[in-house]
């Protein structure tokens, strides 16, 4: 049995949240595209055992989450601005 990853919970919740965010991702191929990208990004580091690198990866996930949230905010802001303040 492999040793239990102490970051397991954090990693899973980051993954789940990314998938949740991805449902609205503006891409022509839609959610399946996002899910595959996201899955591959996590799967690539599946074998990682170095604690430092895992924490780095978590920070990266955190960063991507923040970026996507900001992207959604801007997209909404710009659409509304265009619709209501185009004068």
């Amino acid at each position, binding site marked *: 049995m492999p040793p239990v990853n102490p970051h397991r919970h954090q990693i899973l*919740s980051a993954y*789940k949240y990314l998938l949740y965010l991805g449902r609205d991702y503006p891409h022509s191929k839609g959610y399946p595209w996002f899910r595959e990208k996201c899955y591959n990004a996590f799967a690539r580091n599946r074998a990682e055992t170095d604690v430092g690198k895992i924490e780095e990866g978590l920070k990266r996930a955190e960063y991507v989450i923040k970026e996507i949230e900001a992207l*959604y905010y801007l*997209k909404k*802001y710009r*659409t*509304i601005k265009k619709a*209501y303040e185009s004068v």
Partner: protein
Amino acid sequence: MTALRILVPVKRVIDYAVKPRVNATQTAVETSGVKMSMNPFDELSIEESVRLREKHKSRVADILCLSAGPPKAQDVLRTAMAMGADRSILVELGEKDELEPLAVAKLLKEVVQKEDRNLVVLGKQSIDDDASQTGQMLAGLLGWGQATCASKVELVGEKGVRVTREVDGGEEVLEGELPMVITTDLRLNEPRYASLPNIMKAKKKPLEKKKLADFGVDGTNRLKTIKVTEPPPRQGGGKVDSVDGLIAKLKELGAI
């Protein structure tokens, strides 16, 4: 110091990213099978209430959200609570029922009195009907001061509120005393994203279900929609290859 008891009304509307379509019978905009979400201007008012609490920890007693709509409007209230509201009331309407601004204002007036509110923060308009009337009507019915289209909200002194509004060529600053009605403009703040863990936590926050009759409000509409049609498609422009061509074209159209 007067404690703030805030009411934030929210509306469930067609998502901002969806292009609305007129239904087959030309009586309304198609809403079935269309993605719905919270009116973006209402997100701003929740965010502002939550920010007021973060800035003045002891002053905000509670933030109450209210929505009047079909049972599914619950989702919008959950989102509101995930963003930081404490509790909510859902006034259940039928799937096809739509309240007019005056009826909403009357309903809000009753809620304000029943729940003892002293600050109402509304979106300046909803992105579906674009009436932009509810806040003003509510202030009129209550006899309270109103500050519409706020781009900045500050608390001053014991019970003062200072609101900045963007007007043509500058800013206008209004000062008033609680109780007050504020409506939000686009640049007031940047609403936070209702994160997954917060949505889960919001499921435990109290959500009360009510009927219009509980507040003694008559929801009959005074206006009748005769017909809804899409705007005519835009006619494409033509290209001219020289100044002479342009002049000839303008003459042809009788413009010069």
